């Protein structure tokens, strides 16, 4: 395929919608799910005479994001007006940042097929979100300004990505990061994480960049992959035919699996940027940056390295690192029983995670099985007091009844039956009741051991310790 001759060069602009209580430049609620235009005020509606007032929390979230990416935080940054006409843009301009953004440089790391990747960032800046247009089949559109003014951070990457897969992982890494920081839900389907892609191709040995196209309307991780894949293929075909790539903006159509160029009239965007006169420059001094730095949690990269050093298998580490609350839970449980860390990880991944809808519930005090309780259960299984199977049953009851393992074991007598004489007798009875099978076993049908174990387990109501039973039977059968 012709694609092999080309190198794809991809840069992404990712918009992160911040989960602040109020909008970036006004104090109406940054809330969702209400009636259209339920959460507005003169400023976010763009009424005559209204003025912007900056939300400190929005800046703080952006600073933490920048620090987490290793960006340089400007001690003084500026807002700028970016002009275009569209119904969901009430003032006729967006308040964004142009010449002096909050963050410059930095990088985002991710792993793909086990290999580490790093994408350099150009910048991260703050801006206000627009409202929403809803298209009606009757031939009109309806405008809702609830979302107008919600804070956004725009993360602009250098064109370091080389495949659609990498691009999707990059966006996923940003999602994980913003959720770790607690600054955004990072949900593409809901729109709290959005992505535009710039794609160009060049001959693999070339150093110059080809003409890039901009892709918009990418609303999920799948779209990230599909849209970019499609664009790479489209450009490769054109280049093979000796045609020229037009610099344009293309909209991804997920239903048809193709992109289409936007009408050229809309392409000629002269945003007429100039410094926002209603907002003096924003000072983020050393003290503020220090405070923000101290408030950073352990980030995914660092946590991944720490769990790897601990000896946890890569598969498990990936899950533990996927959401901050999972690792937090793990660390707390592990603190109670450090030797059992691998088992704790298993139990957490297989039993606990299966029972929560939202990982944030893991660290909620209301969770039925908090980290220490899980650790206690795991220790009981490791010690042999409970078999694995019994352990699962106990866990289920712990979850349902919010009781500790020790409590359940004590009151229900669910401990493993490891009283040797009793087991020896149970084994002897099982063998005596099945003389034919014993004979066949001794004749070489070793598989029948399982049959005998099964009978002993049945007789003991599943409480016999299977290891001991196996051992005793082995001796009795010779």
């Amino acid at each position, binding site marked *: 395929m012709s694609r092999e001759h080309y190198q794809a060069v991809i840069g992404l602009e990712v918009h992160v919608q911040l989960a602040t209580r109020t909008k970036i430049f006004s104090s109406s609620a940054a809330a969702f799910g209400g009636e259209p235009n339920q959460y507005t005020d003169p400023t976010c509606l*763009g009424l*005559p*005479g209204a*003025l912007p*007032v900056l939300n400190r929390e929005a800046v703080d979230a952006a600073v933490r994001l920048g620090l987490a990416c290793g960006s340089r935080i400007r001690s003084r940054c500026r807002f700028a007006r970016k002009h275009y006409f569209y119904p969901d843009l009430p003032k*006729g301009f967006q308040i964004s940042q142009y010449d002096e953004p909050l963050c410059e440089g930095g990088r985002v790391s991710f792993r793909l097929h086990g290999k580490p990747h790093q994408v350099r960032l150009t910048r991260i800046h703050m801006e206000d979100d627009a409202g929403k247009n809803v298209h009606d089949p009757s031939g009109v559109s309806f405008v809702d300004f609830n979302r107008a003014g919600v804070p956004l951070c725009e993360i602009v990457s250098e064109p370091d990505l080389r495949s659609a897969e990498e691009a999707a992982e990059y966006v996923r890494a940003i999602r994980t990061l913003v959720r770790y920081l607690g600054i955004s839900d990072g949900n593409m389907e809901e729109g709290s994480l959005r992505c535009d892609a710039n794609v160009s191709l060049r001959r693999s040995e070339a150093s110059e960049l080809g003409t890039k196209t901009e892709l918009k309307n990418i609303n999920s991780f799948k779209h990230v992959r599909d849209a970019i894949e499609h664009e790479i293929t489209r450009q490769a075909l054109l280049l093979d035919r000796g045609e020229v790539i037009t610099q344009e903006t293309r909209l991804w159509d997920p239903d048809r699996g193709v992109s289409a160029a936007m009408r050229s009239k809309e392409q000629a965007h002269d945003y007429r940027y*100039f410094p926002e006169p*209603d*907002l003096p420059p924003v000072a983020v001094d050393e003290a503020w940056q220090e405070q923000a730095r101290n408030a950073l949690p352990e980030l995914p990269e660092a946590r991944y390295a720490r769990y790897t050093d601990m000896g946890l298998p890569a598969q498990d580490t990936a899950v533990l690192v996927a959401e901050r609350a999972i690792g937090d839970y793990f660390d707390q449980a592990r603190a109670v029983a450090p030797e059992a860390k691998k088992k704790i990880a298993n139990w957490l991944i297989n039993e606990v995670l299966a029972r929560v809808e939202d990982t944030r519930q893991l660290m909620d005090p209301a969770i039925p099985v908090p980290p220490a309780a899980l650790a206690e259960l795991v220790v009981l299984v490791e010690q042999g007091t409970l078999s694995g199977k019994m352990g699962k049953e106990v866990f289920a009851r712990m979850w349902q009844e919010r009781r500790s393992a020790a409590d359940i074991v004590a009151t229900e007598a669910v401990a493993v039956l490891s009283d040797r004489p009793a087991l020896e007798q149970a084994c002897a009875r099982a063998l005596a009741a099945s003389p034919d099978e014993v004979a066949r076993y001794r004749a070489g049908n070793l598989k029948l051991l399982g049959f005998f174990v099964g009978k002993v387990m049945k007789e003991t109501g599943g409480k016999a310790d299977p290891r001991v039973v196996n051992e005793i039977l082995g001796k009795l059968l010779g």
Partner: protein
Amino acid sequence: MPAPDLRGAALTELAAGTAAGKWSARDLVETYLERIAQLDKKLGCFLLVDGEGARKTADAIDKRLAAGENVGPLAGVPVGLKDIFVTRGLETTAGSKILKGFIPPYESTASARLAAAGAIRLGKLNMDEFAMGSSNENSAYYPVHNPWNLDRVPGGSSGGSAAAVAASLCAGALGTDTGGSIRQPASFCGIVGIKPTYGRVSRYGVIAFASSLDHPGPFGRTVEDAAALLEVIAGHDPMDSTSIPRPVGRYRAACTAGITGMRIGVPKEYFQAGMDSEVENAVNLALAELGRAGASIVPVSLPHTQYAIATYYLICTAEASSNLARYDGIRFGHRTASAASLEELYAKTRGEGFGAEPKRRIMLGTYVLRAGYYEAYYGKALRARRLIADDFTAAFAQCDVLVTPTSPIPAFKLGERAQDPLQMYLADIYTVAPPLAGVPALSQCCGFTAAGLPIGLQSIGPPLGEEAVFRVAGAYQGRTDWHTRLPRDPS
């Protein structure tokens, strides 16, 4: 209880009289409403008279006063608001057809503070559309006539405010000044108007023309009146990010503090050959009077004055083109009757709703902000602005207050300059520099031409130097009686 003769009544007198129970707030309101009903059809000062609202407010105030409550320093004083201040529940048009019928759901900080101080809003005052103009001929509704001579303009853009105070249709008024729009009409109408330091008075609720240059401020018959109004409306506002967080000065007290030992700077660039000779004479006499009052006169220079008008028009049109982008017929205001597409909606609504001057400035502003033009025009203007501001800083190292004419010419005839926009802009020569620098500047009457038209004297202070400005203006007023002259009521 009878109201006083309101012609020429000072706001401070009226406030004192109401507080002392000499007359009721309702009496004052009725008397002013009567004057407006009789005289304003000849003048055109008001776009909207809210008689019902004023009466209600007056009655409420009278009740509270009768109960012994302290209603505020301006209790019972009827005032007018330039129609650029949004008033909750009361139509606000900015002098434009594109905002006809616009009922704001919120109140401007400045007008709210006036109301909290007990002032009574009589209505909304006429103005040049979106504050763009120097004659009030750009009002989309009707022009304003100068009370001193009905064939003449009152100045602009706060022409309605200045004329209303001059004609005693209200005791005081609020306006805005971006390139001279308080001072020049004050000058043309023979009253006091002050453009405070940028950020001294909140812009929240002031319909924006040029954000970095818009200054809300008061008009009064006397310097004490202007000072009293300024004390009420000035001060930090958390709703305006450019609002100065420093405490408000004691402006009324400054009016009588005297000027012995003060140095008055006279910038030579404001006294070029070819000035109107009557204006020049009046200002020179005023300077002499200030000298006799104990100040010394110091010649200074503001060398970048020649770039002030170009700088001003580059910055204000760029910002205006941006601030006026929100007028699109979607959330408020005029909307074209039929639009087949979104593009038509925008283009027709705006084409129909804006008058010639806003269109001119939007076009100019859009032009200078275009990619590729920014550095040569807007970028350059921002640098020129710093040089102009630095000129003032340097001058204030040598003097305490600058004194200049407010306008090179007295009020011109209606229609005389309306055809040549550039000529209109060039008459702003003495007023455009202080807003660029953000320094406070006041205009007061310093004489009359032979034809009976008022001449304005401008006092400019350093940033937050309103007190120095009021000292000079107060000293001058104390030694003259121009402020007691009144125009005849139009018949």
